[in-house]
């Protein structure tokens, strides 16, 4: 069973807020899934390379050439803007 503190620590890493009942539910859900995952301990992985990609290719490079881009559509999707600038909340607390 994962402790409440552990869940809170993970939620901070994941940038998610959790209510008390959500924490409890997650403790149960994650315990269930992690319990199932535990069977991987029995696999013999001696001398086995990790496989993080299905295709055996490396460093696909592109020609370094300048292309025209237009940011108009991207700017349109800004939740808040001032002309072409992205506007965000000021989150700098005054340290007195």
């Amino acid at each position, binding site marked *: 069973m*994962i402790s409440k503190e552990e*869940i809170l*620590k*993970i*939620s*901070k*890493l*994941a*940038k*998610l*807020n*959790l209510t008390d009942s*959500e924490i409890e539910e*997650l403790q149960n*859900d*994650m315990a*269930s*899934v*992690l319990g*199932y*995952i535990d*069977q*991987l*301990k029995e*696999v013999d*992985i001696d001398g*086995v*390379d*990790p*496989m*993080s*990609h*299905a*295709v055996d*290719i490396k460093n*696909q490079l*592109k020609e370094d050439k300048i292309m025209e881009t237009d940011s108009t*559509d*991207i700017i*349109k*999707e*800004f*939740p*808040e803007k001032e002309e072409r600038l*992205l506007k*965000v*909340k000021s*989150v700098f*607390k005054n340290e007195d």
Partner: protein
Amino acid sequence: MKIKEIQQGLNNKDFSVRELVERKLALIGEKDKDLNSFITIDGDNALKRADKIDERLKKGEDLPLAGVCVGVKDNILFKNVRCTAGSNILSDYTAVYSATVVDRLLEKGAIILGKLNLDEFAMGSSGEYSAFGVTKSPIGKDLVPGGSSSGPAVAVLADFCDVTLGSDTGGSIRQPAAFCGVVGLKPTYGAVSRYGLISLSSSLDQIGPLAKNVEDAEIIFDIISGKDEKDATSVNMPQGIDVSGLKIGVPKEFFTQGLDPKVEASIRGAIKKYEQAGATIKEISLPNSKYSIAVYQIIMTAEASSNLARYDGIRYGLRNDADTETLEEVYSSNRTQGFSKEVRRRIMLGTYVLSSGYYDAYYARALKVRNKIKQDFDSAFEKVDYILTPTTPTTPFKFGEKLKNPLEMYLSDMFTASVNLAGLPAISIPCYNIDNLPVGLQIIGKPFSEKSIFATAKIFEDLK
């Protein structure tokens, strides 16, 4: 109508592209309120484009997909059309570019009718997890259509679209295809560009076609596949594999507990048909396949937690005006409001398995077991050319049936997830119905053997 029939009809002037689009839009308008397969219908633009295609055809232009109405899963971007990924966090987001696969279809004259419903961020196996409502199946009103490409499967079955594009990370094209009695292909990893696909799990995701028949799925695959400069993980496909004689492997581990005996009977019936057609059937073993779901849950959630970190409400997407003081609080507030419970659950799991102290025990270990799963397939493919399995362990289950314990929902991917882990191509085609319910037959092939898989699938399609 099949794609070739549409082409013939247009050549014979039996109908115009506009008429075809009008018919589809009318049908969608009439029937989709009961099914909820579409999130966004781009009707006006579809009709405008239809008129343009009709003009170009009059001038004698060759457009192999003229008149073909396509639906696109709402995690694949189509420029200037809303793209939600089935999530509140993107409910008002408009795509600023089109996915390469969409551009390739448009180049050949296809019409995109709209964006199709899915489990949020492609996380789900039933069509129950969308922020835009549940998708229903024409098969039965209390049966799930499958997921996460629920909209794409239903839109094909209901004739709303001639073909659709879905995405598959652990079975998300093949399983809904099986549950809806249609054809769905997950290409070899790297065969189809992921540029413009909202990423779930970058080493597993692939875009693929769904259609009513194998021929149409193949036509679409031929057009969307191939190296794309904008996707560094896409490759040029090597030439087709020469296969003389049909050597089929049946993995014993896929025919044990968990498999509904009626589904097994349907699949064995298909295997017999292949035998009658002259195929050699061999029992093979994929001993590490039993760990697929465990490995998949670790790798997929880990990669998802990383891929979904970008949704923070700053540059795009949902941004609330909650009373927050720190940057952390801004992020958490937007994300908690925008993501549904299942998405948050998977992000939490992924973050956990990557976190310090657990990385080696879970993630690093999973990558090694993944290699063993792939090696099992490599050994099997030295003896056989195709591997036949059921696509799913059961016929379509009921709404609500698998919501209580998340693990139960995850286990429904047990026959499909190993294929994504190994990066292999696989198709699901309709097999013999059981009690009037569809069953999917999965054909797995060697890397980049899609053309051979289509040919093998057609054999059963014709003989069935």
